[in-house]
C-alpha cells in the first residue's frame, strides 16, 4: 500500500479497490470511496494550493463544501476543464486528473509568493486606492497585471461538449440536507404520504453520522442506521444525492444543482453532466447542519492546520490519519473528541490548548485520562513552518510545541444561508442549523418537522458536550486570517474599521471578507467578531451580511441547461422551403433575404429581384405577419376603438390600411383590416407585433370595452401567404384561379375562392406599391403553389428586396421608422384617422399640444448628394455637419429602380424642410443630403393584361412525418392531421354549440370532454378547442349554427397546429425537462388540458392517459418542440439508437 497515512481498517472506503489518479502530474493512488482531499491526505500531501492574494501555501481546512483553501482544477479532456472545485467534494475515480491553482511555475516554488512578502503593500481596498490614476493606465497596465496575479483557476478556452439538463419538480416537502435531522424529517414526512424530495450535497446521505461508527441509534451503528432509514423511505420520496440546494427564490422555488457524471470514470452516453432542478415546494425543511469555525491566530492558514471535526471525518469515514503529531486548539468541547480519537488511532497528540479558563465535562476528562497536556485559558500565538506547520508557539510567548498538524475548533455556525434567502417564507429549520446539537434532539425535531409525531430514538455512544460561546476576538495581525479564500486578516478588518467602515456590509465590500464563492461559510462569524471588537460593539448588534445564491458555485452549463444551440430560442419555420434562399432570422422567424442565382452576390440578387417586381412579377413568402380573425356583431365597433380608421363604412370584401396606437397616441403597429364576410374580419399585424396586438386587443376587450360581442382568434399559422406583386401579377395568377376575376378586384379588396382546388382568401394588396395580390392559403398547400408559380417564371424576392421596394414608396415599417414616440401625423399618415367616428385608443393624447408641435420629427425622404453613397441607418442629421441633431436616418438603401441611393428619415419639422440640405456626420466626414418627399417611385398606371387560359397546379407536395429516436420508456410520435376548431363563446352559446356538434363544451377550467371521436378542450372561460378526425368538414358549419341572439366565434385552425404524442412511464418526466407544470396524476389528471409553455413554445398539453400526453404545437414551432422532446428523451434512448440523429 502506497498510502502511508491510510489506517489499517475502518472507514467507508474500499481498500480492495485502489483508484489511480494524478495531482499536478504526480501519479498517486487512493481507494474507492475517497474524495480527492482524503486521498491526498492518505498520501501525506498537504500543500494543495496557493492563496488568492498573497499566494501563501494552503492545505486542506475542512472535509466538506465549506472548504476555502483546497481549490483545484479538474481536467477531463478538451473543453472539460473545470476550475475552482473543492478537493473535499471531488469524488475520486480512476484516471482523475487534478491540478493545483494560483501558482507559477509550480506549487512548491511560486513567484507570486513575493506578494506575500509585499503584503503591507496590499492592504484592503488596494485596488481602489492604487490603481485610480491615471485612468488610462487602468486598461493598459493595471488590469492585465491584476488579472494575471489574481483570480482562482482558469476558465476553459473551448466550448463545453457536455450536456446539461433542467428539471421542474413539485413536492409537498423539500428537505435540504440529508444528515441526521434531514433523514428524520424525511422519515416523518414520508410517513404522512407526502411527496418528498430529500437532497444532500454529498455522494452519500448521512452527514456527520457517517463519521460516527461508535454511535448507535436504536441499536444500529450510526452509518448502518442511515442505510436502513434511507431504504425504508417510500416511493413518494425522491432522493437526490450529489445535489446542492444553491438558492431560494420567490414562491418557494428552490434551485438544486445535481452532479450526475463527474464522479464516474466512464459516464453512460446520453447522460447529462449536471441537472438543474427547479423545485416548487409546499414546505421547505432546512437541515443543512452547521459549519465548524476556525480559530484566528497568526499563521492559522498554514497547511496542516485544519478543523478538528474534519480530522475525525477523515479518520472515521475515509480511514485517513491527517498527521503524525497534532496540537488541538479549541473553544469547544467537540475538539476533545478529535484528540481522543486521533490518539486512539496512533496519532501523537502533543497538547490540547483550550481558550476557556475551566473546561469541564466527560470529553475533557477523557483526554485528561490519556495524559495529554491541556493548556487552559490559552490560545496559540503563532504557527511556524513553510509548506506545512512544524511548530506552534502558545500565546504565553514561552511554550513552543513541535507538531505537523493543528486541529482547531471555534465552535459551530449554523448553516442558514438559504434561510436568509427565503425572504420570510414559512420554512422550518431543524438540527444543527437550528442550533440543536444533541443527536436525539435532532432526530426527534426532524420527525416532527416532517409532519409526524416526534419520534423517540435510543442514541448511545455520544458523550455529552457543551457548545461553545462566540469566540473571543483575536488581536489585529497581518497573518491572522479571518477569511482564507479572500486572504483577509484581522489587521485588514482593523484597517477597514479604522477608515470608518463600520457597517458589516461595508467591511465585506472593502475587505472582500465573505465574498466570492465562499460566501463566508467559515469566515462570517469570525469577521463579525473582529469588527465588533474594533468598534466596541456587541457582535449581535453588528449583524450579518446578506448570503447570496449560489450556496456553492454552480456551473454556467447547469444554468444554461439545454438552452443552447438550436434550443436557445425557437426559430419559427414558414411552410415554404426554397433550397436557394439565403436565410436570416428576424422577429423569431427564419426568413429568406434573397434567392441568388448562379453565385450572385446578395446585393446583385436583391437588385434583380427589385427590378423583377417593378417591371415583371415577383413573389415573396409573406407568411410571418400576424393574422387575427375577429368575429361577432360588434366587430366594427371594436375595430373603430382599436385602430385609427373608421370601419363602419367598410363593406364585406373591402380592406383598409390602419394604425394601432397606444393610449399615449404613439404608433404601436399597423396592418390591414379586411371585412371578409358580414361579421367576420381578417386583420393583419406586423411580424414582430403579432403577439402584442392580440394581447392589446384582449386587454381592451376583457377590461376596457367589456360587454362587446367580439371574439379574437389568432390565425397566423392557419394561413400561409404568398405575395405576388408586379405589373404582370394578374397574368401570372389568373390561369390558376378559376373563381375570382382578378382584373375586377379593386385595390384594397378581399375575395374568397380557389387556386387550383385549394381554398384561398385573396387580397388585392401589397407592400410594394405595384399591382399585386396576397394569397392566403392553407400552409399544407403553400409549397405546391409556390413551386408552380416559380415554374411559371415568377421571380421569388426576399426580405432585402421587400425593404427596398416599400421604402421607395415611402411605406413605413413600424419599429424601423417608429420608436414608440411617433404619431400618425409624424409619419404623414394622419389620413388614416377616421374623422367622424367616436373615441379610439390614443385619441385623447393626439390633442395634447406636445403632439402637434410644428418642430416634431416628421418622416421625409433623403437623397444623398453623391448617388453611390448609402448613409448609415441610425445616423444623425445636422444642419451644418456638426452641432445639434435635427433628426436621424431610419432606412437607407440603394434603389435599382432609381439607380441611386435614397433614405427615409425622421427630421424636426421635416415636411417644411423639403428641398433643404442637411449633413450626416460620418467617420469619413460629413455627407450632404437633400430633404425630399418620402415617395420616390410614383404609382405606375394600371397596365392592361392579356387574357389567359387555365393551367393546372403542380402535384401536391407531401412532407414526411418526423421520425423519433427509439426510446421504449418514452415514445414520441407525430399524429395524423385532425380537424381543429377554435370556439369562443359566452355560456349560452357554448351550450348550443356543444349540442350542435355533439360534444359538450366543458365549463370546468382545464378539463376536456370526449364524445363520439370528438373532443372539446377548455382553454379559457370563453374559449375551447374542438378536435375531430381529419376531414370532419361539416363540423364548422354545424358549430356556426348557433342562435342569432347568442353569437359566438368558430374558426377552423386545423392547419395551425401539429399534434404530437408522448407516451410511456417517463413521459411526464421528459415533459418536466421543459415544462414547469406539476404533472403528478393528482395535480394533472387524465383529461386535464391547458395551454402552457414547453421550453419557449406555447403549446396545448392534454393528458389522455396515465402515461400518454397529446401536445398541440403551433406548426412553425414543430422543429423546436420536437428537438426539445428529443433532448429530454436522449437519456432514455434505447442503446442502439442513442446516437441516431433526430429528424426534425
Amino acid at each position: 500500500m502506497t498510502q502511508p497515512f491510510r489506517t489499517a481498517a475502518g472507514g467507508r472506503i474500499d481498500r480492495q479497490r485502489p483508484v489511480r489518479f494524478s495531482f499536478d502530474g504526480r501519479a498517486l493512488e487512493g481507494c474507492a470511496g475517497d474524495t480527492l482531499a482524503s486521498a491526498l491526505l492518505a498520501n501525506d500531501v498537504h500543500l494543495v494550493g496557493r492563496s488568492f492574494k498573497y499566494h501563501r501555501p494552503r492545505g486542506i481546512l475542512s472535509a466538506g463544501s465549506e472548504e476555502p483553501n483546497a481549490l483545484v482544477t479538474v481536467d477531463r479532456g478538451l473543453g472539460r476543464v473545470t476550475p475552482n472545485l473543492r478537493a473535499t467534494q471531488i469524488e475520486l475515480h480512476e484516471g482523475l486528473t487534478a491540478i493545483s491553482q494560483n501558482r507559477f511555475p509550480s506549487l512548491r516554488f511560486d513567484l507570486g509568493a513575493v506578494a506575500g512578502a509585499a503584503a503591507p503593500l496590499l492592504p484592503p481596498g488596494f485596488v481602489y486606492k492604487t490603481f485610480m490614476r491615471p485612468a488610462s493606465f487602468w486598461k493598459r497596465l493595471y488590469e492585465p497585471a491584476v488579472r494575471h496575479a489574481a483570480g482562482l483557476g482558469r476558465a476553459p478556452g473551448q466550448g463545453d461538449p457536455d450536456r446539461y439538463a433542467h428539471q421542474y419538480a413539485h413536492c409537498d416537502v423539500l428537505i435540504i440536507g440529508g444528515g441526521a435531522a434531514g433523514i428524520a424529517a424525511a422519515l416523518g414526512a414520508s410517513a404522512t404520504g407526502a411527496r418528498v424530495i430529500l437532497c444532500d450535497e454529498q455522494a452519500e446521505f448521512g452527514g456527520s453520522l457517517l463519521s460516527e461508527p461508535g454511535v448507535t441509534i436504536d441499536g444500529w451503528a450510526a452509518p448502518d442506521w442511515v442505510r436502513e432509514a434511507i431504504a425504508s423511505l417510500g416511493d413518494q420520496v425522491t432522493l437526490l444525492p450529489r445535489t446542492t440546494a444553491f438558492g431560494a427564490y420567490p414562491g418557494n422555488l428552490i434551485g438544486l444543482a445535481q452532479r450526475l457524471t463527474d464522479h464516474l470514470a466512464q459516464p453512460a452516453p446520453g447522460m447529462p453532466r449536471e441537472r438543474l432542478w427547479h423545485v416548487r415546494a409546499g414546505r421547505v425543511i432546512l437541515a443543512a447542519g452547521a459549519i465548524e469555525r476556525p480559530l484566528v491566530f497568526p499563521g492559522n492558514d498554514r497547511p496542516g492546520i485544519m478543523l478538528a471535526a474534519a480530522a475525525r471525518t477523515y479518520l472515521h469515514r475515509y480511514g485517513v490519519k491527517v498527521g503524525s503529531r497534532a496540537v488541538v486548539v479549541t473553544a469547544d468541547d467537540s475538539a476533545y473528541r478529535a484528540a481522543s480519537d486521533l490518539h486512539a488511532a496512533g496519532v501523537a497528540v502533543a497538547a490540547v490548548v483550550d481558550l476557556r479558563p475551566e473546561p469541564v465535562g466527560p470529553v475533557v476528562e477523557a483526554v485528561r485520562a490519556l495524559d495529554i497536556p491541556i493548556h487552559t485559558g490559552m490560545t496559540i500565538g503563532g504557527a511556524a513552518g513553510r509548506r506545512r506547520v512544524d511548530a506552534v508557539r502558545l500565546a504565553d510567548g514561552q511554550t513552543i510545541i513541535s507538531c505537523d498538524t493543528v486541529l482547531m475548533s471555534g465552535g459551530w455556525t449554523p448553516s442558514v444561508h438559504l434561510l436568509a434567502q427565503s425572504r420570510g417564507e414559512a420554512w422550518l429549520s431543524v438540527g444543527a442549523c437550528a442550533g440543536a446539537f444533541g443527536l436525539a434532539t435532532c432526530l426527534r425535531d426532524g420527525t416532527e418537522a416532517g409532519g409526524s409525531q416526534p419520534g423517540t430514538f435510543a442514541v448511545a455512544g455520544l458523550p455529552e458536550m457543551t457548545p461553545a460561546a462566540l469566540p473571543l476576538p483575536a488581536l489585529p495581525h497581518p497573518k491572522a486570517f479571518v477569511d482564507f479564500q479572500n486572504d483577509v486578516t484581522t489587521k485588514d478588518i482593523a484597517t477597514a474599521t479604522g477608515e470608518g467602515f463600520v457597517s458589516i456590509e461595508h467591511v465585506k465590500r472593502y475587505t472582500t471578507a465573505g465574498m466570492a464563492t465562499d460566501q463566508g461559510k467559515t469566515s462570517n462569524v469570525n469577521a463579525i467578531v473582529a469588527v465588533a471588537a474594533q468598534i466596541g460593539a456587541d457582535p449581535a448588534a453588528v449583524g450579518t451580511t446578506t448570503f447570496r445564491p449560489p450556496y456553492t458555485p454552480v456551473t454556467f452549463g447547469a444554468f444554461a441547461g439545454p438552452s443552447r444551440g438550436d434550443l436557445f430560442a425557437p426559430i419559427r419555420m414558414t411552410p415554404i422551403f426554397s433550397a436557394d434562399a439565403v436565410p436570416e432570422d428576424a422577429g423569431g422567424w427564419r426568413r429568406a433575404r434573397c434567392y441568388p442565382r448562379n453565385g450572385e452576390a446578395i446585393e446583385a440578387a436583391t437588385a434583380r429581384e427589385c427590378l423583377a417586381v417593378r417591371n415583371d412579377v415577383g413573389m415573396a413568402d409573406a407568411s410571418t405577419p400576424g393574422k387575427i380573425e375577429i368575429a361577432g356583431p360588434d366587430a366594427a365597433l371594436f375595430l373603430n376603438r382599436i385602430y385609427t380608421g373608421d370601419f363602419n363604412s367598410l363593406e364585406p370584401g373591402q380592406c383598409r390600411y390602419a394604425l394601432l396606437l397606444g393610449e399615449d397616441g404613439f404608433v404601436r403597429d399597423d396592418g390591414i383590416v379586411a371585412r371578409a364576410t358580414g361579421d367576420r374580419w381578417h386583420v393583419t399585424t406586423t411580424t414582430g407585433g403579432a403577439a402584442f396586438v392580440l394581447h392589446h386587443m384582449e386587454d381592451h376587450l376583457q377590461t376596457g370595452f367589456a360587454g362587446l360581442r367580439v371574439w379574437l382568434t389568432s390565425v397566423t399559422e392557419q394561413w400561409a401567404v404568398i405575395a405576388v406583386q408586379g405589373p404582370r401579377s394578374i397574368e401570372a395568377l389568373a390561369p390558376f384561379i378559376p373563381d375570382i376575376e382578378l382584373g375586377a378586384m379593386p385595390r384594397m379588396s378581399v375575395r374568397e375562392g380557389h387556386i387550383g382546388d385549394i381554398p384561398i382568401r385573396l387580397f388585392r394588396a401589397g407592400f410594394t406599391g405595384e399591382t399585386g395580390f396576397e394569397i392566403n392559403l392553407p400552409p399544407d398547400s403553400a409549397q405546391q403553389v409556390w413551386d408552380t408559380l416559380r415554374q411559371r417564371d415568377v421571380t421569388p424576392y426576399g426580405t432585402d428586396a421587400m425593404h427596398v421596394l416599400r421604402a421607395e414608396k415611402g411605406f413605413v415599417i413600424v419599429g424601423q421608422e417608429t420608436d414608440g414616440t411617433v404619431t400618425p401625423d409624424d409619419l404623414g399618415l394622419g389620413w388614416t384617422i377616421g374623422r367622424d367616428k367616436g373615441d379610439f385608443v390614443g385619441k385623447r393624447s393626439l390633442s395634447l399640444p406636445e403632439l402637434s408641435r410644428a418642430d416634431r420629427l416628421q418622416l421625409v425622404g433623403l437623397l444623398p448628394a453623391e448617388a453611390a453613397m448609402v448613409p448609415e441607418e441610425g445616423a444623425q442629421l445636422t444642419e451644418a455637419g456638426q452641432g445639434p441633431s435635427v433628426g436621424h436616418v431610419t432606412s437607407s438603401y440603394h434603389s435599382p429602380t432609381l439607380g441611386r441611393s435614397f433614405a427615409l428619415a425622421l427630421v424636426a419639422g421635416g415636411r417644411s424642410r423639403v428641398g433643404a440640405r442637411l449633413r450626416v456626420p460620418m467617420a469619413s466626414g460629413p455627407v450632404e443630403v437633400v430633404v425630399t418627399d418620402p415617395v420616390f417611385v410614383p404609382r405606375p398606371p394600371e397596365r392592361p393584361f392579356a387574357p389567359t387560359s387555365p393551367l393546372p397546379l403542380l402535384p401536391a407536395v407531401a412532407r414526411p412525418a418526423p421520425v423519433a429516436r427509439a426510446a421504449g420508456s418514452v415514445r414520441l410520435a407525430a399524429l395524423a392531421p385532425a380537424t381543429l376548431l377554435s370556439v369562443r363563446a359566452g355560456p349560452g352559446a357554448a351550450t348550443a354549440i356543444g349540442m350542435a356538434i355533439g360534444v359538450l363544451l366543458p365549463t370546468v377550467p382545464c378539463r376536456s370532454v370526449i364524445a363520439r371521436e370528438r373532443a372539446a378542450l377548455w382553454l379559457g372561460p370563453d374559449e375551447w378547442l374542438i378536435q375531430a378526425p381529419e376531414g370532419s368538414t361539416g363540423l364548422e358549419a354545424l358549430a356556426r349554427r348557433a342562435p342569432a341572439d347568442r353569437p359566438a366565434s368558430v374558426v377552423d385552425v386545423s392547419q395551425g397546429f401539429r399534434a404530437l404524442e408522448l407516451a410511456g412511464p417517463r413521459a411526464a418526466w421528459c415533459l418536466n425537462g421543459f415544462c414547469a407544470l406539476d404533472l403528478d396524476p393528482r395535480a394533472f389528471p387524465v383529461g386535464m388540458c391547458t395551454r402552457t409553455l414547453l421550453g419557449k413554445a406555447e403549446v396545448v398539453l392534454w393528458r389522455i392517459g396515465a402515461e400518454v400526453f397529446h401536445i398541440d404545437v403551433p406548426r412553425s414551432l414543430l422543429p423546436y418542440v420536437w428537438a426539445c422532446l428529443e433532448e429530454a428523451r436522449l437519456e432514455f434512448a434505447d442503446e442502439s439508437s442513442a446516437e441516431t440523429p433526430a429528424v426534425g
Partner: protein
Amino acid sequence: MLLIPCPWCGPRPEHEFRYGGAAHRAPPEDASAVDDAAWGDYLYSRDNPKGRHAERWRHLHGCGRFFNCIRDTVSDRIAGTYKPGEAPPL
C-alpha cells in the same frame, strides 16, 4: 419566479403570465372632458408603494384572462388574486 394563482387555472409559474401594470386605474369616463394635465397624470403617473400593491396580470400562456393580484412589493408574497370586477382580498 413567482407562483401566481390564476383565478381560473389555479397556481401557475410566473413565466406563463404577463404583467399588466397597476390595477383599478380606469380611464376617465369622458377623456375629452379632462384637461391635459389630468390626462397626462392618468397616462404617466403611478404609485410605487412599498408593500401591498394591486396589479394586473394576464395568464397569457394559459387561459388568456386578465385578472387582478395583490402582491407585496417587498416580500413578493401574493395575498390573493381576483377576477375583474371583484373586490380585492383583505
